[in-house]
């Protein structure tokens, strides 16, 4: 899911950085009254957990793998704006310290995993709990949120690659390829997200769930 250096045209890199910074300012503005030591601790704990979870690459028959991304989970647990800061922190450390994800593509990676995945996951989870606020509905919402969050993030990556003028492949090729891969492998993301929400509910930790 991490786009490396070389996959995106410079114009797309600049545009994605601008969007990332603008959204970051907006997210801070929306949460400016809730920043305290508890919130920072929650962000740090969740970011540490997601960082470690992303180190697990599970092999899939056919020569590919999946790892948990955690954007939807961050949105469900801390809300769409603080969830952004969780993924931003994870992606920043991965990029600067381990070069996992490019520096030129950092803005795009934050948009895909820290904005789109978080927002899609959060809103689908909220939609599910509005339809019915039962435990099952929360788990189903987490599954769909995790699955679709990754799928839409993959589609966004397809747009970013397809819109890069340096490359020969237009978005009607890159978007279906990226979307399809992530639609199939996103099922795993949905299952893990749902399992974590189920675990928190079964242990009586509902207070940690934002929605």
């Amino acid at each position: 899911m991490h786009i490396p250096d070389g996959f995106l045209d410079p114009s797309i890199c600049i545009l994605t950085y601008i969007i990332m910074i603008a959204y970051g300012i907006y997210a801070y503005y929306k949460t400016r009254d809730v920043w305290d030591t508890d919130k920072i601790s929650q962000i740090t704990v969740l970011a540490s957990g997601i960082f470690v979870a992303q180190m697990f690459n599970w092999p899939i028959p056919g020569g590919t793998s999946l790892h948990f991304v955690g954007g939807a989970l961050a949105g469900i647990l801390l809300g769409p704006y603080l969830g952004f800061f969780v993924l931003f922190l994870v992606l920043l450390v991965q990029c600067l310290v381990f070069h996992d994800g490019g520096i030129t593509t950092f803005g795009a990676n934050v948009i895909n995993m820290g904005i789109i995945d978080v927002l899609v996951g959060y809103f689908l989870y909220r939609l599910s709990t509005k339809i019915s606020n039962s435990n099952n509905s929360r788990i189903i919402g987490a599954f769909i949120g995790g699955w679709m969050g990754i799928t839409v993030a993959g589609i966004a990556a397809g747009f970013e690659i397809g819109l890069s003028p340096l490359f020969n492949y237009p978005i009607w090729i890159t978007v279906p390829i990226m979307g399809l891969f992530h639609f199939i492998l996103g099922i795993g993301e949905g299952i893990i997200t749902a399992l974590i929400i189920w675990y928190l509910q079964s242990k009586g930790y509902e207070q940690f769930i934002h929605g």
Partner: protein
Amino acid sequence: MNKKFLIFLAVLILISPICGVILADIVGYHEPLDLAAEAIGLKDLSEQLNWTPFYDYSVPGLPPEIGYIISGFIGVAIIMGIGYLANLLIGKKKEKEK
């Protein structure tokens, strides 16, 4: 931070090379993005543009499995360090406001 959670993270980091290094070498798999990118002919420039000694969760001079584990601990320590600094800043800001 909860002690149980820290132990849980440490155990996960210790076993992470099974999936992140050993199985990757045996099965020879790639991330979905890499496969999709290969299908449309994109070129990864990460190695040419590299700036970090811990490239791809490795530590120079150490076997990949050990490097992967140490990288996990480094990553978590940095994230927690950033959180600690942010908490200090917020604490000082709140004191000034009082």
